[in-house]
Every structure is written in C-alpha cells, then in structure tokens.
C-alpha cells in the first residue's frame, strides 16, 4: 500500500521555482529520507504535503486522500514535527499536549493516560507541570515528538528534526523513531541534509537539489548507480560542490516580499 503519492509537484515563489515537477511514492511502513543541500526545496515539499502550503501545480495523495480536495482527512492522519520550534512557552508540557489532544479530538477519557505515557516515553514525566519556556532545546524537541505521536498518526513527518540538537537527543530521537516505525508500522517521512542520518535511518532516500529529485533508491542503490563508495561522495557527485547559502537567503527574501504584498 502507498502512504504518499506525489506527481509533478511544483511550487513557485514569484520567479523562483522552489520545487520543480517532483514525483515520488512512499510505501506504507517505509522510512523515507528527503536528502538535499540547503534551499533544495525540502521544507517547501514537506509544507505542501502537510497542508500548510498550497502547490502551484501537481497532485499529492497522503494516507489515501488527495491533499487539495480533502485537507481535513489528511490532517487527521499525519503527525508533524516542525523544523522550527512550535510549542506554546506559556503552557506546561502537559498543557501543550492536552491542547493538541483536544485539537485532534482524542477522547477525553484517554487523554490523561495517553499524555502521561508519552511523556514517560520521552523521559519528561517528572517535568510535566513545568512551563516549556524553561526547557532546554533538547527537552522541547522531546515534547514536540511526544506531541507528534499523541493522536497516533499513520504517517509522521519530520522536517530537519535534528538541527541544533546534541548527540544524545539526536540518538534518542532516531532510536524512538525507528522503534515506532517497527512496532506501529508507522510511515516516516523526514528531510535532512545530513548524509549519515539518511544512510543509517532511512529505508529509501530521494536526493533533491534545486527543486528537482535527482535520484531515488536505497543508499546502496544510489552508491551503485553513481559508482561511489560512500553516500557522501555520491551526494557530492550528484549535487556538485558549490555552497548553497545564497539560495536559502534568496528564497527567504522572496518569501518576505511576497508576504508583504499580500
């Protein structure tokens, strides 16, 4: 069964094409990595898949539903861990999760138990009544993971989930993501620019650069096809050696211009 089906997905910001006719499929139970340098269009793609941004053209099916037609059904089936911080600092860890449980209509009788078991799962049960504003970056991330899993989604999206995290939290995160994938058969879709992560965690990798998918396959297949010995050299061969910082800021600038016009 397919969890995500994308065909000819395109997103333009003014003259800039952030995502250019991207097509791929993710099977149920897969851990799919979207690997690419900064500004390649990874976040834009994940935003479109999670109903946050509407595409310029193209079709997306997530969890069996066409995204553009049935946003609500898609939203029910997905969990998202955002690239940037998205908790309410003025609420406690428990309250943040409770708010989420209400939004996702988790039955009232199950809320407390579910929240506590998830907070236990991310080792934060003893801090449940502390304001998240006082938490460290890693702890906040763990609350976000618990929140993403609270409504038992079919597909979990993670946008650059390990940026700015220490090694311990990173390991913790991947260990748990793998465990959930195994135990609950949850489909995982994540973006990263970290080769090692993609290679170690993902069952399938799509390399994306300048808005286009260059190659899709397991890390072994990719190395074989590019005739390289490591994913890193395969990646560099595919995407070149230029530094991409400029692209990101150009995109951001464009977005800001667009926002102002609206």
């Amino acid at each position, binding site marked *: 069964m397919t969890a995500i089906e994308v065909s000819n997905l395109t997103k333009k910001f003014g003259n800039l094409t952030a995502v250019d006719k991207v097509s791929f499929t993710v099977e149920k139970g897969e851990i799919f990595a979207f690997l690419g340098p900064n500004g390649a269009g990874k976040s834009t793609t994940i935003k479109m898949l999670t109903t946050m941004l509407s595409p310029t053209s193209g079709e997306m099916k997530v969890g069996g539903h066409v995204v553009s037609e049935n946003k609500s059904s898609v939203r029910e089936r997905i969990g998202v861990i955002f690239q940037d911080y*998205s908790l*309410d600092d003025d609420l406690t860890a428990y309250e943040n999760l409770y708010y989420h449980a209400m939004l996702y209509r988790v039955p009232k009788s199950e809320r407390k138990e579910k929240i506590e078991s998830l907070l236990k799962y991310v080792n934060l049960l003893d801090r449940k009544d502390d304001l998240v504003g006082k938490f460290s970056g890693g702890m906040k991330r763990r609350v976000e993971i618990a929140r993403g899993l609270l409504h038992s989604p079919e597909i979990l999206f993670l946008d650059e989930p390990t940026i700015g995290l220490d090694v311990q939290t990173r390991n913790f995160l991947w260990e748990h993501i793998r465990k959930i994938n195994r135990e609950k058969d949850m489909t995982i879709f994540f973006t990263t620019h970290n080769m090692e992560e993609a290679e170690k965690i993902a069952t399938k990798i799509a390399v994306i650069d300048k808005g286009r998918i260059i190659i899709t396959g397991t890390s072994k297949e990719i190395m074989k096809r590019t005739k390289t010995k490591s994913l890193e050299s395969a990646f560099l061969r595919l995407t070149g050696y230029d530094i991409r910082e400029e692209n990101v800021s150009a995109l951001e600038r464009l977005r800001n211009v667009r926002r102002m016009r609206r």
Partner: protein
Amino acid sequence: MLFLLAFGFGFGPVFEQAGAGNYMQYLIPGIVGMAVLFSSVMNGVSLIWDKNFGFLKETLIAPVSRISLLIGRCLGGATTSTIQGMLVLLISIPLGFTMNWLMLPVAVLSMFALSFMFTLLGTTIASRLDDMQTFPTIMNFLVMPMFFLSGALFPVSNFPAAIRMVTIINPMTYGVDMLKHAMGGATEFPALLDVSVIAVLIIALSFIGTRFFSRLEA
C-alpha cells in the same frame, strides 16, 4: 483609566455647566467601551505573535475547521477584554458612578458581544499581516477615530453632516450606545438597532475571517 480621569475631571465641569447632566455618568459607559475596543483589537496581535513564533502552525495543521479555529481564538480574546471592561466599571464606582445593578448581566453581555466583534476585527486584520510594526498603524488610523467619533466622550448627534456620516457608519457608535442602554445614560438609537448592527458585524466578520484563515500559510 487615564482617559477617565483626564476627561472626567477636565471636561466634567464644562459639560455640567452646559446643562447636560453629570458628565461622569455620561462618560463611564464610553470609557468601558474604550477599554473593550482597545484591548479587543489588540487581541489580533496574539495571532501575529503565534505566526512569528511558530505556534500557529500547530493549530493550522490540526484537523479542525477554520471557522472553529477563528471563533475559538476570538472567544478567548473576548473573555480577557470583557474582564478589562468590568475592571473599568469597578474602578468607576468609587468615582461616583451608579447604575441599575439589576442590568449588570446585560451590561456584561453587551461588553462581551462588543469584545467578540472587535476581536474578530483585530484577528481578521492580523491574519493578513506578518509583522508587529504594522499593527500600531492600524490602531492609529482605525481604532482611534472609531473611539473619538463614537459618542464615547461627547454626544455626536450635533456634529456637522459630513462627520455625522462617519459616526453613523462607525460600529463603535452602536457599541457605545448599546452599553448606554445597559448601563444607563442618554441613548441615540433603539437598543434593537444597536444589537442588530453588532450581530450583523459578527456574522460578516466571522465569514471574512474564516476565508482569510483558510488562506493562511505557514
């Protein structure tokens, strides 16, 4: 609060000499309305705040209809604004304000309806804005005129025709008038008209706000 003291004690004697009765009694419903108006429209800032700090995404990807997101936000905002209005009312008692206290529930309800309407207005505007800097401009060009041309501080029925027109299309005029019906004081329109105007605006703004909310992108 500052307005209450400055206008109350400053204009009060002039007002009374003109034979228009006790100015404090006239002013308090207007000042309550002002507290409600200012804090309600400012509730819109919380939306921009959430946008900039990422929390909005969490609510936007939730499988909840956009109208319930909007109404939920605005009910929350309206509650805090109503409390502010009630605080002003409380402070006005030692300054000599009296009203028919049996009407208090009606007054609170009016404050809430007015708060809800202006929070909807603030939130609808905020859904189209991205930075905090724009919001004070809106306060200056929209909220201040709405306040001054509403009959909150002085009667507006004798204004020249052109400005009179502005007061008639100003929602705040009906809001203040509604509060005066509830809290006592010289009213300009029938209560039914005030309530209808506010109700129609609430429905219209919910509709527009929902459309803007469904277009919100993170």
